[in-house]
């Protein structure tokens, strides 16, 4: 029996070059056998950051890259019959060949032209695309339709570049008495870029950033450690001082974007909303610190889904996900492309005195495990892990002690984590009293951060 073309086995490789990293994602699909997955690899090009305009990106480098990638992914990609000419092995079966290779190059990537032209010269078998604001607009607006979100905030946080995109429907009035209303699609972009590493290092001396720190940054030792972090940007932070500076730094960047573009952030979290977070800092930051910097930086309220895409799968395969069966390269499914997601609930807490009041109580129910009771108390930012095996998981509960989501008519919160929809790995309930006030001194922040993190009551 003949198989429909879209159901045939297929494998496709997409590389994304962004912020001195190469993100490789190889998608494999066999819909007849109901087997689909994605293999990922990340290569940090930071050791080459001063050499990118020299001799590095030549054919030899790219050959070596694809040879190593074959070993890492366990997949034959390069056809070695053509000596010195890069050709791909046509897709035959699982582990053998790909139907195509696409390389996306971010327009903020240092030495963009050098890299783009080296790839253009390297092989005619590779499709090259540029990731710019227009590309991102297409992805984000498409995702809104595909995933059913009314409002998407996309936050890309890297050391030198902070970019925020937002796509939503906006009501506008028209007519003589402005009585007629229509829905309009709105897409906005906000950015901060740092020109030099020295400026970035010096930025921790700013009084604005000092207000968010929980350590004294005036000492030379702290300054030196931060300078070393900026110079080498390791993929793992083992220094509490640097962690604290990074949390403050990301918060202040987000806050600066927010304060300069308040109108672009208004009413977020009131409808069916989601935040997608990408970028190196998001990958290396502790999840709790990342939440503080996002929630406090953008002064978020309400309820939304938080996707943390450290492998950049959504940028790489977002178009395929949106186009679904019309996709020319490969048909991918949500479960393979979408990263882990957290449900974030930020209610308005009406408690002015005392603490340790229950703000949220609920349960996690599934056929795979016994019912788990959960409760969140103020002033904590609680993170509950949601286990998932194979059956659906239902999370339900309600806000207590007068806490409300101002735009929701009810205090009940429930959602389902399932393979057919979205698999939630955690529930975050922010029980801190608004407005969130930092400072005035680092030791005050230290106490507050301790109070906010006494979480996870099961």
């Amino acid at each position, binding site marked *: 029996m003949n198989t429909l073309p879209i159901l045939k086995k297929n494998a496709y490789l997409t590389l994304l070059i962004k912020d001195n990293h190469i993100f*490789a994602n190889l998608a494999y699909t066999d819909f007849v056998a109901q087997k689909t997955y994605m293999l990922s*690899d*990340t*290569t*940090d*090009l930071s*050791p*080459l950051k*001063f*050499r990118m*305009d*020299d*001799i590095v990106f030549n054919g030899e*480098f790219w050959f*070596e*890259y694809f*040879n*190593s*990638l074959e*070993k*890492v992914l366990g997949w034959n990609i390069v056809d070695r019959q053509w000596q010195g000419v890069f050709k791909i092995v046509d897709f035959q079966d699982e582990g053998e060949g790909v139907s195509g290779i696409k390389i996306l190059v971010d327009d903020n990537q240092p030495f963009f032209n050098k890299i783009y032209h080296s790839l253009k010269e390297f092989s005619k078998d590779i499709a090259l695309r540029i990731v710019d604001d227009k590309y991102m607009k297409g992805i984000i607006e498409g995702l809104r339709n595909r995933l059913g979100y009314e409002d998407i905030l996309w936050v890309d946080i890297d050391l030198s570049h902070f970019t925020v995109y937002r796509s939503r429907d906006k009501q506008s009035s028209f007519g003589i008495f402005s009585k007629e209303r229509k829905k309009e699609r709105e897409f906005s972009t906000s950015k901060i870029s740092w020109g030099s*590493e*020295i400026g970035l*290092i*010096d930025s921790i001396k700013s009084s604005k950033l000092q207000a968010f720190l929980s350590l004294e940054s005036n000492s*030379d*030792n702290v*300054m*030196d*450690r931060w*300078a*070393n972090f900026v*110079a*080498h940007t*390791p*993929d*793992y*932070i*083992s*220094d509490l001082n640097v962690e604290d500076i990074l949390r403050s730094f990301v918060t202040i960047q987000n806050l600066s974007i927010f304060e300069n573009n308040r109108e672009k952030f208004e009413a977020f979290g009131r409808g069916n909303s989601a935040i997608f977070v990408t970028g190196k800092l998001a990958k*290396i930051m502790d999840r709790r610190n990342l939440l503080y910097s996002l929630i406090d930086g953008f002064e978020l309220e309400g309820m939304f889904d938080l996707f943390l895409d450290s492998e950049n799968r959504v940028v790489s395969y977002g178009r395929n996900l949106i186009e679904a069966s019309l996709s020319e390269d490969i048909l991918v499914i949500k479960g393979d492309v979408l990263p882990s997601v957290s449900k974030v609930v930020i209610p308005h807490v009406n408690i002015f005195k005392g603490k340790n009041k229950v703000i949220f109580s609920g349960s996690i129910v599934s056929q795979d495990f016994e019912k788990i009771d959960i409760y969140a108390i103020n002033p904590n930012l609680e993170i509950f892990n949601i286990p998932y095996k194979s059956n659906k998981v239902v999370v339900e509960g309600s806000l207590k002690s007068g806490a409300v989501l101002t735009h929701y008519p009810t205090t009940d919160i429930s959602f389902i984590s399932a393979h057919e929809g979205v698999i939630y790995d955690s529930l975050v309930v922010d029980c801190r009293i608004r407005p969130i006030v930092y400072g005035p001194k680092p030791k005050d922040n230290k106490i507050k951060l301790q109070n906010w993190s006494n979480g996870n009551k099961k």
Partner: protein
Amino acid sequence: MEIRSRLFEKYTDFKFSIPLKGNERVFAKQGSYVKVGDELLESYISAVKKSIYLPKTLNCKLQECSKYISRIDGEYIEEGEIVARKVSSGGLTLTEVVSPVSGILDCTRVSKGYIDILGEEGSNIFKSDFDGYINTVNPNDGMVITSNALCIDLVATTKTESKFFGKLEILADGNSIVTEKMLESDYSGKIVWVGPYLYDQVAYELFERGAVAILTYAISYEEFRNIGLPVAVLGGFGSVHCDLKFINRLISLKDRLIILDGTENQLFVITDSKDVNREWFVNQYINQLVISRVPSSYGYIGKIVEVQEDSDYVFVDFDKKGKSLLHIGALDFIDL
């Protein structure tokens, strides 16, 4: 996938320029090949008898130094004569700089804050210690040569100029922390490796003795920002360890011609190294050379001896420092 950082990367056909001041006698011809030992040029240099650092002496900003100089560049001055004068506090305070020796006043380094008193002129024949090809020789571009080089990445430079050219000088054994007392009298035309750590006082003294630029493995970030002189940092900031494996390789390049490129953050050593760099990508972790970025062992170079299954942690053997269990993300893979 991990990429290997080539601490000393071989560059073939590297093009560089030896700057010409105009008073040199050039022996090498445009379009010719030069070999090790060939005479390139004869330069006439006056020995520096004394250098004075004006920002410190006059208590003024680096950018303001030139306006306080009261004598003409190239003028002969006698011992005891005033060479710079600063009036402050509405004319109530007068600070004067008196020449400690007789000689010719040279203001070519005034942008770095120094004025020099020169002695007698002597000639110096510059011989090639490399094989290369002379592309052009002219007063604007200097002597442009193509040769092989080693490239070393810098963590940061003060970027007071775009490029510095000189011979690599190693202070003491290259591994000791140097004090002012250990310095010699003249470092003219030298780019000086001071060792694992640089104190600003040593930097000022070196520039007073004619150094072109300073290389160090580490310096305090605050001092780095305030120094205002051409300093290149190869390792990091603060008290970071400088591994002997790195130092031994660097000091083997003593007396080589080097070009410090401040805008590119790179150091080029003109040498025809026989060493071959390893491939860029790391295919397996065991026995790979790494440099630690964890505070407790920052800068130590070691070998991965064991990988913890199903985790991102590996055991690294740092020789005398012993073995440590470290996260793979806090290690830089290197080719040394």
